[in-house]
């Protein structure tokens, strides 16, 4: 006899943000069919409405600490915060896209549906408590992004970027899946809390199961490493970021990263922490590996970014570098006792990066011409004279990416370096600080171009109504987190990741 759950057991209330968004996607898909071509702005409004509803609901159920959907979904403040990041990114991307889609002639109805699907994927990824759900969420997150990257289909670069992203993304998914299969083989369950419970016993014995577990965890790390673009799995990033339509690049640089790191943190923190540790040790077995990867990512990302002349490419390498900083937080999670602080630091860093990077891309889009040109660093020359406000905001975003005090980026780096130091990763912290200094070189170069170089000054015709809203929102977010960091930190103050803290 099968144990049949009732619909009340599913506990749908706490899953509402993600489930609602997934269902709402279909509403957008259908409603868009009936909206005439010249009034597609309605689709954008509808999308924004849905995102706002999900956002408000997410605030209501923020730290409910319950499991739902038969234990496959955890609603805790970790998933609440990931939802927060995903929805913020989606809302700002929505504003970014309205005018851009119109002037570049990209199909509008599908774009918003795909954006919502991808956002729902990120949200499920943050809340997944079962390997099956992690895998499906990973695909719901990725598959729409493959399509969106290729959506500017008259442009050969966009097609190329879509195919490259697709092939490497599918490759990464296969690695993740095989890792998940091996972890399942070692533990006999796909539920993360149950895996957590059985890992300790498996690590203690020197059996075949232990081999499966270690191999599986390594393959999962490779798969997710591709998604978040850490060295040595970063090769696709610059090409894909350059070729994809700019709002898509902006969205995938923050949302795909948030989703990937959410899964990585949950798997490392919750499911496999004992892999972590021969009993009695305080440091995870995998910590050194991840620390080395993080160091390589920070160094390569920052140094290669220096020589770029295209801003989209530069921001791509910069996003690789930032993945390295967040990975530093993941490495710090491996020290017993620091996990909570490190997770919080990584989450806040992601939120800060979300606002800052979306803002930077918004300014890039203001300068971008309809044919995709106008994204060279030289195009920023004289911007302070032609568009002073835009230049001020761009300068602020660049300083935030560098990590200068009073910006969001500083708060993120401060918390992350603090957590890494506490975890005893001194060398890694030093590398982090030094590479931040290196990164100042290429970020400040844009500011120099805007303020000190002579140039006729780009009229920045792309800075239209909706794009300006997006820029202001990102600017406000960056400034608020920079000045009042406790607003974000308090959200995670009562942080309870089910099963660990």
């Amino acid at each position: 006899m099968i144990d049949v759950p009732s619909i009340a057991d599913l506990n749908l209330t706490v899953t509402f943000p993600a489930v609602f968004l997934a269902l709402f996607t279909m509403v957008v898909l259908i409603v868009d069919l009936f909206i005439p071509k010249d009034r597609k702005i309605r689709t954008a409004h509808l999308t924004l409405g849905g995102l706002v509803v999900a956002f408000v609901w997410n605030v209501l159920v923020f730290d409910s600490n319950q499991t739902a959907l038969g234990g496959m979904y955890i609603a805790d403040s970790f998933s609440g915060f990931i939802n927060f990041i995903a929805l913020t990114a989606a809302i700002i991307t929505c504003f970014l896209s309205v005018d851009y889609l119109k002037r570049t002639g990209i199909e509008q109805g599908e774009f918003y549906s795909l954006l919502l699907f991808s956002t729902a994927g990120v949200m499920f990824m943050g809340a997944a408590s079962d390997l099956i759900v992690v895998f499906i969420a990973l695909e719901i997150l990725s598959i729409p992004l493959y399509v969106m990257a290729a959506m500017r289909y008259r442009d050969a670069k966009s097609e190329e970027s879509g195919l490259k992203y697709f092939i490497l993304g599918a490759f990464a998914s296969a690695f993740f899946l095989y890792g998940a299969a091996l972890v399942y083989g070692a533990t006999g369950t796909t539920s993360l809390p149950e895996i957590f419970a059985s890992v300790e016993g498996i690590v203690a014995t020197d059996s075949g199961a232990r081999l499966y577990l270690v191999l599986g965890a390594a393959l999962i790390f490779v798969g997710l490493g591709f998604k978040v673009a850490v060295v040595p799995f970063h090769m696709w990033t610059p090409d894909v970021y350059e070729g994809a339509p700019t709002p898509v690049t902006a969205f995938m640089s923050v949302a795909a990263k948030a989703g990937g790191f959410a899964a990585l943190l949950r798997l490392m923190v919750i499911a496999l922490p004992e892999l972590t540790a021969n009993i009695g040790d305080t440091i995870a077995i995998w910590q050194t590996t991840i620390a080395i990867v993080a160091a390589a990512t920070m160094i390569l990302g920052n140094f290669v970014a220096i020589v770029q002349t295209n801003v989209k490419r530069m921001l791509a390498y910069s996003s690789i570098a930032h993945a390295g900083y967040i990975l530093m937080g993941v490495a710090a999670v491996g020290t017993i006792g620091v996990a909570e602080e490190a997770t919080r630091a990584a989450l806040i860093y992601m939120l800060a990066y979300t606002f800052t990077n979306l803002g930077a891309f918004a300014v890039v889009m203001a300068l971008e011409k309809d044919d995709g040109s106008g994204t060279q660093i030289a195009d920023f020359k004289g911007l302070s004279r032609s568009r002073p406000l835009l230049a001020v905001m761009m300068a602020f975003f660049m300083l935030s990416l560098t990590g200068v005090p009073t910006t969001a980026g500083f708060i993120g780096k401060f918390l992350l370096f603090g957590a890494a130091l506490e975890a005893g990763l001194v060398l890694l912290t030093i590398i982090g600080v030094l590479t931040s200094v290196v990164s100042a070189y290429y970020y400040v170069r844009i500011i120099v171009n805007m303020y000190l170089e002579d140039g006729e000054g780009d009229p920045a015709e792309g800075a239209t109504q909706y794009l300006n809203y997006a820029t202001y929102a990102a600017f406000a977010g960056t400034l608020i987190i920079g000045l009042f960091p406790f607003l974000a930190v308090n959200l995670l103050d009562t942080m309870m990741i089910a099963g660990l803290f």
Partner: protein
Amino acid sequence: MALQQFAPIAALIILAVVLTFIISNISTIFGPSNNTSRKTAPYESGMQPIGVGMRRMPVKFYLIGVLFILFDIEVIFFLPWAVVFRDLGFYGLAVMGLFFFILTIGLIYEWKKGALEWE
């Protein structure tokens, strides 16, 4: 004991392979053959063959094919449900109803988009 049960199947397989080989080759071995260039040319109902053998297909076939795969694969979710249909009762019906509803939305979408039109 286990392997002997498969003996009839093995015999059948061997018989099938040998018989097929004999039938398909018997005429080439025993029949007369005088090949002329006209005889070896591919038969095109009396027309002269033009162009290459591999023709490119209209992309519409591909579209229909992909749509078919998508909906075809979804059916596998009905299978386990059908096996335990009675045990699951109303809950199962409600959940599969939702699943079916989502599938229908996909169908409505592609219909309305004109993906099912041949022209």
